[in-house]
C-alpha cells in the first residue's frame, strides 16, 4: 500500500510507523471537526426531531 510493500529495515520501519502516526493525528483532528459539524444534526435526526 502506498508503494511501501517492500519497506523494511530501520528507514522503512520509520516510514511505516510515521505513516500510521500521521494518519492517527489526521483522524483525531478530522473526525473531531466532523463530530462538531454533523453530530448535533445526526442526534436530532435519530431522536426524530427533524
Amino acid at each position, binding site marked *: *500500500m*502506498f*508503494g*511501501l*510493500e*517492500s*519497506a*523494511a*529495515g*530501520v528507514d*522503512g*520501519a*520509520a516510514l*511505516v*510507523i510515521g*505513516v*500510521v*502516526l500521521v*494518519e*492517527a*493525528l489526521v*483522524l*483525531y483532528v478530522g*473526525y*473531531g471537526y466532523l*463530530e*462538531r459539524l454533523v*453530530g448535533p444534526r445526526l*442526534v436530532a435526526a*435519530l*431522536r*426524530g426531531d427533524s
Partner: protein
Amino acid sequence: MELFGVAVTLLALFGGFGVLIGLLFGFFGMGGSFLVTPALMVMGYETDVAVASGLAFVFATSVIATLKHRDLGQVDYKLGVLMIAGTTAGIEVGKIGLHWLQELGLADTVVSVIYVALLGGIGVFITYTATRGGGGDGISHDADAEREGDLDDADIPDIAKKIQSYRVPPMMSLRGGISVSLWLILAVAFATGLLSGFLGVGGGFIRMPALFYLIGVPVPVAVGTDLFEIVFSGGIGSFLYAIDGAVELSIVVPLLAGSALGARLGAAATDLVDEDEIKVYFGVMLLLGALAVAIRKVGEFADIPVLQTVSLVVILGAAALVSGAVVVSSVRALRSETGYTARTAD
C-alpha cells in the same frame, strides 16, 4: 477494483471491522485491540504479520486516546517512563520468543492457545460478574468517562497496601502519595510487555488492573499512564516488527480509519446507555472470540477448510453483535425523552 494497489473490498472489510472494534473500544474502554490479532490470524495472515499489524493499530489508537487525556492531568510521567523501560524489555523478549517459535513451526499454535485462554478467561469473568450484577472490571480508557473520576478519593486496594508494605529498595514515590518498590513496577511492566510483544496487544486490559490492584495507582491516573505507556510500547513494538517488514499498511490504515470513527460513536453512546446493561454481551463476545480461534485450529489439525470460514464468521459476528447492541440501545435511549442527555462535542 483496487485503491493504492489494494482491493477495495478488502479495504472496506477492514474499515467496517475497524468501526465495530472502535465502537467497542469507545464504549467499554477496552476490548478492541485484542480482537484484531486473532481476527487477522483467522483470516489467514502469518502470525508475525497479524501480531505486528495489531501492535501498529494499538499504537495509533492509543495516540488518539492519549490526546484526549493530555489536558486532564491523568498521567504520571515518572511511572510512565519506568513502565516504558520494563515494557520495552518485555516486548523484545516476547518478539524473540515469537520468532523462535515461528522457526519451530509452533508460533501459530502457541499464540492461538494463549489467546483462547486469555479471551476465554476474561470472557468468563466478565460474563460472570455481569450476570451477578457486579461492577467487575469497570476501568475505562475513555477520557470523557474519567473526567469526573475519583482522583482524590480513590481507595488503595488491600492487596496493593500489602504489596506496598514490602519495602525493597529503591522505593519510588508516585502520584497520590504512593511509595512502591522500583522492582515491582519493572516486573509488572516486563510481564505486560511480554504479552504485547508476543500477542500484539497493548496489554492495557492487564496493565490497568495491575497498576490499580498491585501498585495502588488511582484509576484515572492508571488509565492515563497506561495510554501514555502504550503509545511508546506500541510504537516501539510495531517499529521492531516493521524493521522485518511485518507491519501491513493495507490492514492498519483502513482499520484505524474505521476504528477512530467507531470510537467517537462508542464514546458518545456512553452518555446514553448504561455499560452494565450490555456488559454481558461483551463477555459473550470474548468467549465467541476464543471459540473462533479454537475452531480455526481444529480446522487446521483436522484439515477441514470450511472451519476457517466458520471461525471468521463467528469472530466478525461476535463483534457485530455487541456493536449492534450498543447502537440499538443508544438509538432507543435517544428516542425516549428520559434517556436522553445532551452531548456536546469534546
